[in-house]
């Protein structure tokens, strides 16, 4: 097994898929000559040339639309947003065009497109560069939403997203790009909609995805020393959602907490809490709790940013209270 960084795993997935399928191209700001703002596309320009690794001017709405139009006639674009914060100027193309094209045409136009790039909060980037948007996109039927937490998952899930005939919102965690992990050397894919138990436990189910998995694992290690056994469910994709994995775990532990990087109001954790009370109510010994970013834009000040973000301490405190 090779040890790869999260960014290397993503790079390998794109390279392998593009080697196999000439209809795939990568487009975005600085993906080519600059070698990727976050170096995810490092080396790809040399390998595939300017016809398939395409630098764009700063015009997210425009190149997102280019991607959607080209997908209508059989290409399989990978559209990189330098960060998901900038996707908001392209959200019309993502929701009004990509997500609905197949439906409103009566099934005539599948949309094999991946929108990917750096997401999440932190790093003292301030209010406009520090936010998690998966709940926004998960709201929309027609989109798939994928949020990998490990290099192994990033590789397998990106390959599945590229092969999928639907528009996929693939949100990479900006703070995880340099994180390392084992990635099998043999090619593999991970089906979208398949979560994974990242840690087995018996006292409480902790449901999470992307970077928040780190907070969850840290909290679980702290609590283990106190004799509390935490089971961690990593959803990996929010749409489609591995509901059964959640229910099976809750049936075993009778308690659930959702940990997410995004804001609390109308966040994806609210949907999970609803689903658990609807479908596993009889198994619950405690209301489902959530640990989220605070309900404020992100502050630049180091102490306020720390306070705003979810962290292992907050997760552990929440779990202790639930078990009292």
């Amino acid at each position: 097994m090779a040890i790869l960084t999260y960014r290397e795993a993503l790079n390998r997935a794109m390279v392998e898929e593009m080697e196999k399928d000439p209809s795939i191209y990568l487009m975005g700001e600085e993906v080519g000559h600059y070698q990727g703002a976050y170096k995810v596309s490092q080396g790809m320009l040399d390998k595939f040339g300017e016809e398939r690794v395409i630098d764009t001017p700063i015009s997210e709405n425009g190149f997102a639309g280019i991607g959607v139009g080209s997908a209508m006639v059989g290409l399989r674009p990978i559209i990189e947003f330098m960060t998901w914060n900038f996707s908001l100027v392209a959200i019309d193309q993502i929701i009004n065009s990509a997500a609905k094209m197949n439906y409103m045409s009566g099934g005539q136009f599948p949309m094999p497109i991946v929108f990917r790039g750096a997401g999440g909060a932190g790093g003292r980037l301030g209010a406009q560069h520090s936010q998690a948007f998966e709940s926004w996109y998960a709201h929309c039927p027609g989109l798939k939403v994928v949020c990998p937490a490990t290099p192994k998952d990033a590789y397998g899930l990106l390959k599945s997203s590229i092969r999928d005939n639907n528009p996929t919102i693939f949100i990479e965690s900006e703070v995880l790009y340099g994180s390392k992990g084992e990635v099998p050397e043999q090619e593999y894919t991970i089906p979208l909609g398949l979560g994974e138990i990242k840690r087995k436990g018996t006292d409480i189910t902790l449901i999470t995805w992307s970077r928040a998995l780190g907070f969850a694992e840290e909290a679980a290690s702290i609590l283990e020393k106190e004799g509390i056994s935490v089971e961690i469910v990593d959803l990996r994709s929010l749409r489609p959602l591995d509901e059964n994995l959640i229910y099976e775990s809750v049936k075993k532990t009778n308690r659930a907490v959702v940990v997410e990087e995004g804001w609390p109001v109308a966040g994806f954790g609210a949907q999970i809490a609803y689903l658990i009370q609807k479908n596993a109510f009889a198994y619950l010994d405690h209301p489902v709790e959530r640990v989220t970013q605070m309900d404020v834009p992100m502050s630049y000040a180091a102490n306020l940013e720390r306070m705003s973000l979810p962290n292992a301490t907050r997760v552990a405190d929440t779990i202790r209270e639930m078990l009292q």
Partner: protein
Amino acid sequence: MVSSIPKDSQSVSELKEFYRQMVLIRKFEEAAAKAYSVGKIGGFLHLYIGQEAVGVGSIAALTPKDYIVSTYRDHGHALARGLNPKPLMAELFGKGTGISKGNGGSMHFFDRNAHFMGGHGIVGGHISLAAGIAFASKFKKEDSVTICFFGEGAANIGSFHEGLNLAAIWKLPVVFICENNHYAMGTPEYRALAVKDVSVRAYAYDMARDHIEGDEVRKVRDHVQVAVERARRGEGPTLIEVSTYRFRGHSMSDPAKYRTKEELEAYKKKDPLMRARHELELGGIKTEELDKMDLEIQTQIEEAYEYAETSPEPPLSQLHKHVYAEDK
């Protein structure tokens, strides 16, 4: 009326065909308006009446391998592409036999086989989609050209500028056709456009431009043809502004009180159908023959109406279908 007389039998028969298509659009929409007023068609219904020469002339410059991207005012473009009025009318009625299976409605006609790439409902949003389709033609080294229709209202939205800039820097085979009917819903162009002539915006993108009156169908075709050939040669996009007028309001729910009766009457004197008819008569076609053609089209529309009315609604099982495509 300044009229051009078709010079030879070929141009007479060509104009006859354009006239037929324009009458088809006019009568289709008159029937749709009737159906709307008695509640058989829901939602918004944006009629193309008055603008027929633009769609018919432009699309006549294309071959079947070329692509068309349209707006929420898409009936005329679809009919000019040669789509059968029956599934189009059925779509307006929300029937399962509709061109988009009833999921689209008036604003969302799609026909993959005819390269009719949709009516799109967000003003200007489709301009970059058209650039994307043209991008794909270039990527695949196919010599298809895409034409994209939009109104002058769309020329003020970011997607217009981003789409044109990208198309220009990458020399994409696309022709942007601004159908300037002088009102963005109820907002007249003088209140919305800092520079009234939309076509000069092409200079900002070092793009070829053209500006024509849209009441003479063959002239529209000739000018669009030049741009299509330029695109096909790999010389990049063109922005064409076609001045036209809609005789009805923005949609069926708009009584268009923001414009004067005199203005409307002045434009009605430039009705592209009347003009084509007059030119055909000058070219030697008898009035009776044209009347007969009108009547045949009327019958065709009545059949479409009947087909739409008697078609079944989509099955309820369709509700969840097509949200996601089948797996590869």
